[in-house]
């Protein structure tokens, strides 16, 4: 029992070293391997030091889990990564809750501290489980991406939270009353659902990051139940990581966490939009005309939005970029923090298309670059390039950090139609003097553009 703790410390050290190596794409893969070794050490130490366990059953369980996990990992499309992380969060959270529940069923009389940690672990773990599956359903399209709201929702959530506090308190007082135990599980499960359904599809990156953090908190709470340093340290690391990513996502949208969770954004705007739409006069060019502009350009910045990934046009972008680079032009990519459906998602989608990571620039890095940029090519992005965020205080995206594409000499915007973005607002950028629209599916447009470029 005692010596296994040394291995947990070792595992924790390997997790920290592994994450440290994630600070650069060159060392990151190695870092992931180091973290995985840490996990293996922790698992082996546990199997060897706890004698009275049914090894055979555990191995069967681990094999089943490995097969399911590996299948997910190998089959998943990169565009579906947010869904998969959501599901995995759910499994991690529920595992923690199950352990805490098992521990509760065993202990006849534990300390108040242990019972409290059991309640916290069951609560956070169960909430993570149901919340993650709602998030998965929304991302996958099983559940409407629209915020689901009903009158008195906030009040009902508050009542559930109060009921949870009360039930948790009663468990600690009377641990033999099984009804309180079931009560905590049921209320936590409901809260996971009611807190997630009012959140709109566009805000899912925040929710996934937050649930990621919760899965860590649940593991740490379970660590307190079992007095296990391995779980506590790892849980704390993941909790911190998820919280940082949540914060970055909120900043990327200029929203507070409370506003994301309780704001039901997406719905409000749709109802308040009405007929107050400002008309913008646009210039629509063919790919041939666009090709001529590219031919004269020296510095090109591509702004990929999620529409690009939906059109599966990443490879087409790379082909155009490679052709332009072959003509001694500089091509960079501007990645907004909320360009994808989870933190860093767009980078993965572009990396999958073999676009070198040195060319992927984040918001702070790229914004000064637009000043001397000849062409900014906006592909399926909308709200993240809307200048209204800078000056229009009545705009729902006011204050959101945007990519300053309008500062480039020419902005070429590709969209399928004039439909509005996620925030449901028209983009004044499209009417700017230096803006040119090229309509069509991103992939078709890029392929045609490449043809036209080659024919010049």
């Amino acid at each position: 029992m005692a010596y296994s703790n040394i291995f947990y410390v070792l595992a924790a050290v390997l997790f920290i070293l592994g994450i440290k190596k994630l600070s650069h794409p060159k060392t990151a893969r190695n870092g992931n391997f180091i973290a995985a070794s840490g996990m293996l050490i922790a698992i082996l130490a546990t199997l060897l030091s706890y004698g009275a366990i049914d090894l055979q059953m555990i191995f069967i369980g681990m094999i089943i889990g490995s097969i399911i996990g590996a299948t997910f990992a190998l089959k998943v499309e990169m565009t579906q990564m947010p869904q998969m992380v959501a599901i995995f969060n759910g499994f991690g959270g529920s595992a923690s809750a199950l352990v805490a529940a098992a521990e509760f069923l065993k202990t006849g009389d534990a300390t108040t501290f242990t019972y409290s940690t059991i309640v916290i672990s069951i609560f956070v773990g169960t909430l993570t489980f149901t919340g993650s599956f709602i998030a998965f359903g929304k991302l996958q399209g099983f559940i409407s991406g629209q915020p689901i709201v009903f009158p008195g929702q906030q009040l009902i959530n508050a009542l559930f939270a109060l009921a949870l506090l009360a039930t948790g308190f009663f468990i600690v007082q009377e641990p033999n009353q099984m009804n309180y135990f079931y009560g905590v599980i049921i209320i936590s499960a409901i809260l996971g659902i009611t807190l997630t359904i009012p959140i709109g599809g566009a805000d899912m990156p925040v929710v996934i990051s937050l649930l990621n953090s919760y899965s860590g908190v649940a593991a740490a709470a379970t660590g307190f139940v079992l007095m296990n340093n391995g779980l506590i340290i790892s849980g704390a690391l993941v909790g911190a990581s998820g919280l940082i990513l949540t914060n970055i996502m909120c900043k990327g949208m200029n929203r507070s966490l409370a506003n994301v969770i309780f704001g039901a954004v997406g719905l409000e705007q749709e109802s308040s939009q009405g007929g107050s739409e400002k008309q913008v006069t646009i210039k629509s060019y063919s790919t041939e005309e666009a090709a001529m502009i590219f031919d004269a350009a020296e510095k090109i910045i591509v702004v990929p939005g999620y529409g690009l990934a939906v059109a599966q046009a990443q490879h087409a972008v790379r082909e155009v970029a490679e052709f332009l680079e072959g003509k001694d032009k500089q091509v960079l990519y501007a990645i907004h923090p909320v360009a994808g459906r989870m933190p860093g998602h767009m980078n993965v989608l572009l990396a999958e298309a073999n676009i070198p990571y040195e060319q992927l620039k984040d918001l702070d890095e790229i914004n000064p670059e637009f000043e001397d940029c000849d062409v900014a090519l906006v592909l399926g992005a909308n709200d993240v390039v809307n200048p209204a965020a800078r000056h229009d205080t009545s705009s729902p995206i006011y204050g959101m950090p945007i990519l300053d594409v309008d500062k480039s000499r020419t902005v070429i915007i590709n969209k399928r139609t004039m439909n509005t973005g996620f925030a449901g607002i028209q983009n004044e950028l499209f009417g700017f003097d230096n803006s040119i629209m090229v309509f069509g599916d991103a992939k078709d447009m890029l392929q045609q553009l490449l043809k036209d470029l080659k024919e010049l």
Partner: protein
Amino acid sequence: MDINILTVFILAIFVGFEIITKVPPTLHTPLMSGSNAISGIAVVGAIISTKIDGGVGTYLGLIAVVFATINVVGGFMVTDRMLKMFKRK
């Protein structure tokens, strides 16, 4: 005992904040799936809880073993799959 374990927890949070803020935005998705795999450390707790009493607790522990293993194996594998794609020019 309790205060020691609380110390460990709080220090780990600080270490977490320090190292994670250094991860560049490019790698935020792998960071998330990787840290997700790390939260699968619950598998350790799951293994421990299977030895409990041979009753319901043991079965809950076994289900937890399956769930946490999905988390660990899937998480590390998909992170590796993504990181493999990040190439230099």
